[in-house]
């Protein structure tokens, strides 16, 4: 337990020094507030840059708060997620390649503490960013489109945090398995690309972790989704599985560190 606390402190210090705790939340806040704003000013934007012919008129839909939160989630799931997983996918293997890991591995530490400390730091980073991003989105949504019940909003954010825990566990698992380039590629295929595939052909199945974010937003509408709990459960099981695999591979690949 003591090694875990010390390693966790090291992780947080490192993330802080590389400004991760500054720019990641700022990016998510930016993504969160850009959607309510662009939709609100869509008419002005079209008039200013659209180069529309004389007399052309567009009827823009009336957005409900849930549509805007859905759009913000879409932003988090594409650009936000890509940036998050690229960062996380380099956490273990970059240390191995730079030789920093050697200094840690020569000491009698448990690889479980090592992996868990990194996972905790990565998830904390992702969750803080997502919570702040959603807070920004909700703030603008409630000003411009109408309010959302706070309880269901909290449910949605919590549920999205479970997805962040899953995403960082998967990214970290690949980071323990492969070198930086391959790990990044695998992670991007396993998370953002899988979400795209899911949105193309996902109507044939109902329970998959990649649907969790969509289901989370549906919580706002307070409709009963019979698949939600099963999806949540499956996501948690897969997260635990990814962590176990990650710890095993951290131990197996410890010899790969550069001296």
């Amino acid at each position, binding site marked *: 337990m003591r090694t875990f606390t010390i390693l966790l402190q090291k992780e947080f210090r490192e993330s802080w020094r*590389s*400004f*991760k705790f*500054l*720019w990641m939340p*700022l*990016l998510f*806040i*930016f993504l969160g*507030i*850009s959607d309510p*704003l662009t939709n*609100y*000013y869509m008419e*002005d934007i079209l*008039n*200013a840059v659209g180069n529309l012919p004389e007399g052309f008129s567009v009827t823009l839909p009336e957005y409900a708060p849930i549509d805007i939160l859905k759009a913000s989630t879409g932003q988090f799931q594409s650009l936000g997620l890509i*940036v998050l997983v*690229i*960062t996380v996918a380099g956490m273990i293997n*970059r240390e191995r390649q*730079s030789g920093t890991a050697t200094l840690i591995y020569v000491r009698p530490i448990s690889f479980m503490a090592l992996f868990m400390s990194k996972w905790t730091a990565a998830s904390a980073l992702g969750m803080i960013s997502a919570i702040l991003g959603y807070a*920004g989105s909700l703030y*603008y949504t409630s*000003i*411009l489109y109408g309010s959302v019940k706070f309880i269901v909003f909290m449910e949605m954010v919590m549920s999205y945090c479970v997805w962040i825990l899953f995403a960082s566990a998967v990214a970290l698992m690949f980071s323990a398995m492969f070198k930086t380039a391959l790990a990044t590629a695998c992670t991007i295929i396993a998370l953002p690309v899988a979400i795209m595939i899911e949105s193309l052909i996902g109507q044939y199945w109902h329970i998959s972790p990649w649907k969790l974010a969509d289901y989370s937003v549906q919580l706002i509408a307070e409709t009963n989704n019979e698949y939600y709990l099963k999806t949540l459960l499956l996501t948690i099981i897969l997260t635990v599985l990814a962590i176990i695999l990650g710890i095993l591979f951290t131990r197996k690949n410890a010899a790969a560190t550069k001296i």
Partner: protein
Amino acid sequence: MAAINWALIAPLLVIQAILLIVALIDLIRIHATNGPKWVWAIVIILVNIIGPIVYFIFGRKTS
């Protein structure tokens, strides 16, 4: 065109400004980057939002 409510837009501009300034200060103080420093300076200044973030992910050399 309707008058733009600057109070609404301001946070977006503030976020962009913070990212730009922090990235530039870090670029000046860091001893070496992946690739030439002046290229990163151009990327940070010219590419909106994504520029500073790409610098933070790929530009910083940690050793």
